[in-house]
């Protein structure tokens, strides 16, 4: 394992008396594909929400590339280079696939209200981004969908585009919330193959919540297990799968 790019130190988040997250410490190494598993209600999505700025932690710290990021707003966290996806793909339905990808690059000149009316000031940047976006879509076999409406896509393609949206920026770490939920087994394996390919070719880091362990375990380097807001176990996939504590938490007594 290389040095950690994302570090969570003693992170806690309470909702009234409910300790959704209660002192979790973990790290995600650069260029890692790391799994985060645990039964329903164990705090996985809360952890993602705290890391990406949706919640302020009750206690603890989040460090990204040597910088403390807890307490930042979600848009600021994104601009640091962390992309987050949701269980249900959240693309923008009234925009085309190309526009969904074009939306993400930060600091676009034409997004300033006073510059936007004057096309010549942002036309060059817009065209460059469009060429970059088309190249990315083609590279991952989505070249035919450039003009498609989001509603015309399959669930798997939507999930791929959610990730590709991040690629056009310089984002380095991707937090994926159940990428394999709601897709067929073979498609799920294709999605994870796509994720591995992005790691190998683009040097990206992935931190993945997943319930479909039969898919996840074949593709991740390391797994963290949450239970009742606490870290229950961690290790290589086969170590975790054979840990009696994990089996008990999943199956119950």
């Amino acid at each position, binding site marked *: 394992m290389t040095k950690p790019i994302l570090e969570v130190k003693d992170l806690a988040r309470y909702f009234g008396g409910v300790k959704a997250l209660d002192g979790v410490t973990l790290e995600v190494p650069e260029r890692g594909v790391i799994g985060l598993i645990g039964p329903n209600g164990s705090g996985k999505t809360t952890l993602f929400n705290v890391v990406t700025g949706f919640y302020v932690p009750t206690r603890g710290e989040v460090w990204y590339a040597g910088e403390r990021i807890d307490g930042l707003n979600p848009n600021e966290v994104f601009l640091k280079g962390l992309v987050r996806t949701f269980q249900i793909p959240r693309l923008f339905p009234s925009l085309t696939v190309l526009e969904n990808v074009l939306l993400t690059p930060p600091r676009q000149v034409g*997004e300033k209200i006073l510059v936007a009316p004057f096309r010549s000031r942002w036309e060059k940047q817009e065209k460059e981004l469009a060429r970059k976006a088309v190249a990315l879509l083609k590279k991952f076999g989505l070249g035919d969908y450039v003009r498609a409406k989001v509603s015309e896509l399959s669930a798997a393609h939507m999930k791929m585009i959610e990730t590709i949206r991040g690629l056009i920026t310089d984002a380095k770490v991707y937090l994926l919330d159940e990428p394999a939920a709601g897709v067929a087994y073979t498609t799920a394996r294709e999605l994870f193959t796509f994720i591995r390919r992005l790691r190998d070719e683009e040097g990206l880091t992935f931190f993945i919540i997943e319930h479909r362990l039969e898919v996840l375990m074949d593709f991740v380097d390391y797994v963290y297990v949450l239970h009742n807001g606490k870290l229950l176990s961690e290790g290589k996939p086969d170590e975790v799968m054979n840990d009696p504590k994990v089996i008990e938490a999943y199956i119950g007594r």
Partner: protein
Amino acid sequence: MLPSFDILGFLVSWGTFLGIYAILAISLNLEVGLTGMANFGKVAFYGIGAYLAASLSVYTVLAVYHVAAAPYTTEGIIALGKYGGANPALDLGIFAASLVLGFIIAGCVGYLLTYPTLRVGPAFLGITLLAFGELLRIFLLNYQPLGASKGLSGIPHPFLWIPDPVLRERLYVLVVLGFLAITLWFAERITNSPFGRVLKAVRDDEVAALCMGKHVPRVKATVLFIGSGMAGIAGVLLAFYMSSVNPNMFVPAVTFNIWAMVILGGMGNNKGAVVGAAIITFVDRILTFITPNLGITIITPDYIRWMIVGILIVLVLMFMPGGLVPEKPIKTPAWEAVEDLEKEPARGGDEA
């Protein structure tokens, strides 16, 4: 003004109202149609523009000519009538200053009002703005320096120094339509730009837009600043056209009339907003012209008009749910780049 049927006179009157209401409809479309912010208080910003123009002009004229009377007294109104058209430079200067200040002040009020409500749902924003509009009207109804229930009159028309009233009105309609043209140009340009793309993204899914690094509260506040500023301009244009303002011109029904225009024309399409405004102001003007005893105020309860508008909306929503001019995809130079790429011979390497 009212011969059997004066077609040109009708067109001038319709054109003026069309221009004013189309500016309001475009501004509402930017907020509701493109960004998804339900503004139920549009009339407040329209009223701010109108009252700003009215108070600025009458107080300035009285001060310049050293008249001690207040503008809402009989003496004040007589003095305003006497000095109103005396100095073309003064009239035009007041007009220009009102437009600039109307835009800035209405815009700033919109910006500030949205601050406490931006992080909550759209319904809260709508209700807050609706309440603000009513509070403003009730304040105006009771605030003596602005004429209370009688309002302010004797607002000097910017072309009052031209002796012929018909020519004056024709010049004014050109000014109003000029402002409409600028507003439409601006709205179309920002819609078809990366900024417009962000607006539609915010409308579709605020949380996802936030996750994609967009500063959603700032985007919304910017749109409300611009939209309210545009409504302020419309109010200034109305005040100088009517030459008087009173609180009952700014009832909540005005807001819903503008909503009707946007729904009729097509949510999310600026040209649709203009079409909607054209239809509703046409119905309104034609009724005013054929029933002369209704007088010139558009706010007189006019049940036939409301019925016609209601029927039109039901018909349009039944047969053309997107409105008469439905929303169009965003056009940016990105598509030109895509077309250029498609024209290039494939260099191989992609799996199709």
